[in-house]
């Protein structure tokens, strides 16, 4: 008798594990279906090319797309060199047992977990007010660069860690200095892994809303930004603006915006997967 009760528990548990796991797939499917159903009627070439408008049927996301492009490119320029340099030092030069380096690493992990809205307050105070960049693309990009920096550092460290020691030893044996080993051997070998990390962090930048709202991305910008000091809006901020209105038409516009946003994000993830599969020779663990 006792053993049959054990068996029932065992199979019940196995079934519930499986059911709950596939439920997460269902949630994703429901989310995508709901958004597609609500947004597809507004999806058109005009939607991509129109300026924002107070009339739902004339509104488009051109300024938001251009703004997003500006912000993403500038953010990448600031965050990638900073992040990769830090990762190289931590993985190739630092004495990993030293207390200071462990402190630095915990600090980076903390920065990765800091709420994005705190980054917004930091950017608002530091870049918008103290540095006088005003509510510009530059201020927004610097803020987002700080936000994704820890992600880039952590993924780059993983990529560099995965490069086998034998490559380094061979280069050292040829008499190379450490910088020659790093720049000539380790970095090229780790490049696909680093690229994957960069693409994933850029997709995080594209979807980030809260810090840009704080730093002052406008929801209504009727002209295209022409330089880094211009006012701007980005796709998620535009979506937030539409989603917050009571009218059903604007909700559908928001859904159409989300379809575009998710389309961009999914294709970036796809590229990251391809790079990982095709070019990555070394993987950690």
């Amino acid at each position, binding site marked *: 008798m006792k053993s049959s009760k054990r068996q029932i528990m065992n199979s019940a*548990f196995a079934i519930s594990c499986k059911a709950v796991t596939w439920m997460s797939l269902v949630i994703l499917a429901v989310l995508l279906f709901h958004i597609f159903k609500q947004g597809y009627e507004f999806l058109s070439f005009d939607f991509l090319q129109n300026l924002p408008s107070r009339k739902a049927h004339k509104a488009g996301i051109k300024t938001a797309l251009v703004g997003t492009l500006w912000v993403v490119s500038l953010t990448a320029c600031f965050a990638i060199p900073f992040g990769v340099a830090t990762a190289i030092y931590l993985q190739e030069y630092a004495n990993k047992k030293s207390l200071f380096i462990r402190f630095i690493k915990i600090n980076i992990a903390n920065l990765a977990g800091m709420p994005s809205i705190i980054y917004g307050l930091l950017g608002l105070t530091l870049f918008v007010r103290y540095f006088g960049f005003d509510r510009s693309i530059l201020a927004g990009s610097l803020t987002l660069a700080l936000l994704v920096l820890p992600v880039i550092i952590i993924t780059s460290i993983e990529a560099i860690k995965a490069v086998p020691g034998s490559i380094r030893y061979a280069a050292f044996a040829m008499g190379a200095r450490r910088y020659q080993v790093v720049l000539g051997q380790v970095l090229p070998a780790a490049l696909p892994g680093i690229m994957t990390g960069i693409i994933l962090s850029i997709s995080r930048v594209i979807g980030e809303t809260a810090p840009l709202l704080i730093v002052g991305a406008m929801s209504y910008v009727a002209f295209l930004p022409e330089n880094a000091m211009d006012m701007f809006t980005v796709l998620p901020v535009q979506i937030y603006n539409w989603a917050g209105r009571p009218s059903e038409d604007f909700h559908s516009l928001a859904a159409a915006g989300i379809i575009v946003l998710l389309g961009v994000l999914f294709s970036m993830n796809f590229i990251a997967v391809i790079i990982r599969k095709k070019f990555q020779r070394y993987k950690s663990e």
Partner: protein
Amino acid sequence: MAKKRLSQKTKRIDLIFKLSLFVFVVSTLVITASVIAILLHESSDFFNTVPLQDFLFGTRWAPLLEPQSFGVLPLVSGTLLIVFGAILFALPTGLLVATYLSEYASDRTRNIIKPILEILAGIPTIVYGFFALTFITPMLRLVFPEIQIFNALSGAIVVGIMILPMIASLCDDGFRAIPRSLREGAYGLGANTFEVISQIVIPSSASRIGAAIVLAVSRAIGETMAVTLAAGATPNMTINPLESIQTMTAYIVQVSLGDTPAGGIEYQTCYAVGILLFAMTFMMNILGNVVLSRPKLEGM
């Protein structure tokens, strides 16, 4: 001679390279330091006007209305209501998903589930907010007709969905760090899979599960757009999840979107709430990350 000069030259370059990299490394500390400095500096005027205990223990939050009142508890309780609901959903689900991934699933199934979890984790929070507002709330209305348009329950559910992948993958890592020998010892004594999981795997990875919960709670506290869209903007001390509430993060968004002039006390409240938010998440992140950075159990 020439060889020696070259050697000295490369040595110098190496040193310069190393030092310039080090500048970047130290700058990561500067980021944390400037966050703390800015929050303290900008909120100092506020705390000169409003005593700390009035801020921390006051039960009415109305900085934008007359008469003004600066008790932060309604925002904290709103945040905790969301966090509690989200964990209530995401912890059991996340544990079951992690168990399935590490103990039951074949490599092929794992290769399907893992990317799906990554996609769920990569969807921007604004999308979840929209989903909560236009799908979850109408669904909830079928069950609870009296529910408000903006309500804590829908925010909690959607935040739960957001932190589910995080809990699942951290617990999965924790389970996989348990040496095989422990499991096989238990199987050898006649235990079945459920008993191995509930009596060996979960207890031995308790610290990592704990760290996962702490990090997930911290993430839920800091979550902004989903709760701003779904849970409303009414600082409300309630435990009724069907009512509209306001979280700390949603308040900061509300103020920065309004036309509150910089320098006034209404504006400074942002930083006061910000420093509380920072303190809460900072302590939890340190705790979680210190536990996770401990070395894994070695195979015996």
